[in-house]
């Protein structure tokens, strides 16, 4: 089926044919024809953000909470360069995003035209793939291929740069079959290797599942299969920051998050296991601690759709390249057909050992009657919001780690946080994207005041579209995580790590037509949180918390999983010269 239409109309038609209902964007000179096409239709809603970075993070929030790709439309030059942080964020967290950028007309490319930038050059290292389309006849093919590439294999951000003359010109619109693309990453894992893994699982005395964002990306079926496998085998499971919710936090075998600020029992299980089954995680440096002492006595299996993840940092014994859902399905089938065996006797003593570690109660904190402890604030937020249809986004820093520790996730796609890139300013726009996709849900962005200020202009977006996003700001008037590292590593010399000249957040909210709430007394906190939840509209919640609270437990830089710091008493001389150079 071929139809003649303008390039701008092709953009709209492609979005419709791909089932897109929402686009996040910001207009400008080089995308005016596409904005004109948007004006003349009602199928696709355009959300006007206040900064292009916000558009990309909003699209990420939309994508992560729905499993569908997020779409962004911005102009050339500064529009495109402002999108770079969001693209890099989506690349590191493997989030499917399609960014459409306007470009100066083809005959002006290379002339340093107004708002010209080498967009494909700039975004080449921060996209999974990108295209500059110089011919309207090729536009629809490229746009459909962009969706195919973004969502196939390991998902990621893609960018299509469309010069203004290509948007105006008429060409033929065609829908290529995804199978026509040469990019067809295999999804099925090798059955021989899967059988090898099942055999190892049957014999293992101290097995552990270490799961990651790949389970979420694989889709809800993968989470279901994971739950079935874990519950049927009785093997304990931990997850990275990215994978929270794939296995329910209330599940019997749940160890909590692992890694630098992960739970003691999770990290000790990783260190002491004899079989590690990595499902869709990538041995990130926040997870492994020092590589030379990483889980020294285990057989390691790694399921990942990206061959380059295998043996990148940790040498594994059983590599399986494939989609998590497909591999788990085969794994369950094979395990069942071989008689559903586990080393039950050994698992009992392994569970007993894990329960000993649990008794350490690594998340305990000294409560305070006068000042709100950030941990207390989050445990109250958890208690008061868990019965709602709830989605959580975060900014980056201490509050993010406390949120991961103190909030419990029962389902996938409920937790949106910048994991790989650690982008301060991610959470607010992401919460807008989530709320767009789930208009009736309770969407809370757990924030720090410094991170939140990085994209606070999106308060205008939330107000304009009446999005009832709740900005739960743990305000310690510090860059908390920076300050914590300066305390541990730099003799408590707090160089530039405090928030001076902070706004009055209540007045700020009101200035945008949103609601502001301030709370500083632990006794008032529950009522204030309920007021936030019950308000039908955007809320900025200024929660004044302890100023110098450190986030524990913590694996200090250059240390191993079994060398965690559990509290203030452990910190003296904890990081040595070798660790100090690490980030």
């Amino acid at each position, binding site marked *: 089926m071929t139809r003649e239409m303008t390039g701008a109309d092709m953009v709209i038609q492609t979005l419709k044919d791909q089932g897109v209902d929402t686009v996040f964007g910001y207009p400008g000179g080089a995308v005016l024809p596409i904005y004109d096409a948007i004006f003349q239709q009602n199928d696709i809603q355009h959300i006007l953000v206040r900064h292009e970075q916000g558009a990309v993070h909003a699209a990420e929030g939309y994508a992560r909470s729905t499993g569908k790709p997020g779409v962004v439309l911005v102009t050339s030059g500064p529009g495109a360069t402002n999108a770079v942080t969001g693209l890099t964020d989506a690349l590191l967290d493997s989030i499917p995003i399609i960014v459409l950028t306007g470009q100066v007309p083809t005959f002006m490319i290379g002339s340093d035209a107004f708002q010209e930038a080498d967009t494909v050059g700039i975004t*080449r290292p921060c996209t999974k793939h990108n295209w*500059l389309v110089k011919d309207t006849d090729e536009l629809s093919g490229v746009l459909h291929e962009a969706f195919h590439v973004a969502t196939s294999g390991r998902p990621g951000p893609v960018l299509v740069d469309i010069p203004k003359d290509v948007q105006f010109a008429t060409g033929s619109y065609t829908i290529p079959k995804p199978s026509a693309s040469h990019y067809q990453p295999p999804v099925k894992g090798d059955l021989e290797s899967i059988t090898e893994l099942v055999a190892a699982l049957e014999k293992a005395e101290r097995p552990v599942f270490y799961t990651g964002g790949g389970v979420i990306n694989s889709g809800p079926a993968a989470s279901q299969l994971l739950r079935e496998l874990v519950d049927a085998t009785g093997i304990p499971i931990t997850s990275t920051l990215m994978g929270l919710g794939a296995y329910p936090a209330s599940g019997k075998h749940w160890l909590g998050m692992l890694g630098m600020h992960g739970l003691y029992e999770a990290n000790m299980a990783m260190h002491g296991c004899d079989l590690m089954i990595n499902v869709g995680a990538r041995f990130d440096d926040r997870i492994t601690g020092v590589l030379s002492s990483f889980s020294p006595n285990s057989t390691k299996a790694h399921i990942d759709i990206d*061959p*380059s993840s*295998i*043996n990148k940092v940790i040498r594994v014994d059983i*590599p*399986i*390249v494939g989609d998590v859902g497909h591999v788990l399905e085969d794994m369950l089938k094979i395990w069942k057909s071989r008689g559903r065996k586990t080393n039950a006797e050994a698992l009992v003593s392994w569970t007993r050992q894990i329960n000993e570690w649990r008794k350490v109660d690594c998340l305990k904190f000294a409560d305070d009657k006068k000042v709100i402890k950030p941990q207390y604030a989050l445990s109250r937020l958890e208690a008061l919001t868990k019965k709602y249809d709830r989605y959580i986004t975060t900014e980056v820093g201490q509050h993010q780690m406390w949120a991961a520790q103190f909030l419990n996730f029962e389902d996938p796609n409920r937790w949106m946080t910048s994991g790989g890139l650690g982008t301060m300013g991610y959470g607010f726009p992401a919460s807008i994207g989530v709320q767009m996709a789930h208009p009736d849900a309770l969407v809370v962005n757990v924030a720090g005041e410094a991170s939140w200020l990085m994209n606070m202009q999106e308060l205008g977006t939330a107000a304009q579209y009446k999005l009832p996003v709740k900005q739960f700001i743990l305000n310690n008037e510090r860059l908390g995580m920076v300050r914590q590292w300066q305390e541990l590593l730099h003799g408590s010399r707090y160089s530039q790590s405090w928030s001076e000249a902070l706004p009055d957040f209540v007045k700020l909210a009101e200035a945008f037509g949103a609601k502001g709430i301030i709370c500083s007394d632990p006794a008032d906190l529950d009522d204030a949180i309920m007021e936030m939840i019950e308000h039908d509209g955007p809320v900025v919640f200024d929660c004044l918390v302890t100023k110098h609270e450190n986030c524990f437990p913590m694996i200090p830089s250059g240390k191993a999983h079994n060398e965690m710091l559990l509290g203030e008493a452990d910190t003296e001389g904890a990081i040595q010269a070798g660790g100090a150079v690490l980030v």
Partner: protein
Amino acid sequence: MSALHIKKGSTRHSAYNLRPTFSDVQERHTLAVLVENEPGVLARVIGLFSGRGYNIESLTVAEVDHTGHLSRITIVTKGTPQVIEQIKAQLGRIIPVHDVHDLTVEGPAVERELAIFKVAGEGEKRVEALRLADIFRANVVDSTLNSFIFEITGAPDKIDAFADLMRPLGLVEVARTGVAALLRGD
């Protein structure tokens, strides 16, 4: 994905399990990368090497299939076995890359390079340069009364050796194409 020479659906790696991966030994590998000849594809490959800190010792590129618009990039690189495996896997992730072959592993392979040398000199040195060129089967492609341009093809080692000999005889300039390589046999 062909990058790791993984059969479709397979996870086993042909050469991978034969060698200790995390060894410190630096190996020289010749990779043949078949790519779609579209704008920016070479920048993607080079950007991968610079962005991830890999070495390029030699790189050649030209379209080899005009109807299919396929180019062949031949890269000579150096690294530990783990780095070499990463390079291949990372190349395989680039969308317009169709195929990655490690000729050093899949070999034996024939490697050839073309170089042209300008050698200036007079008298005995000029005669000696001409005599050595003959031994190395280098052709004279240009001559003035006090200089030659020699053209030589061969393995990179042979070209290095020829350069060493020409240096004391008045070597002025060298231009080399980089390595082109093919697997032996069929």
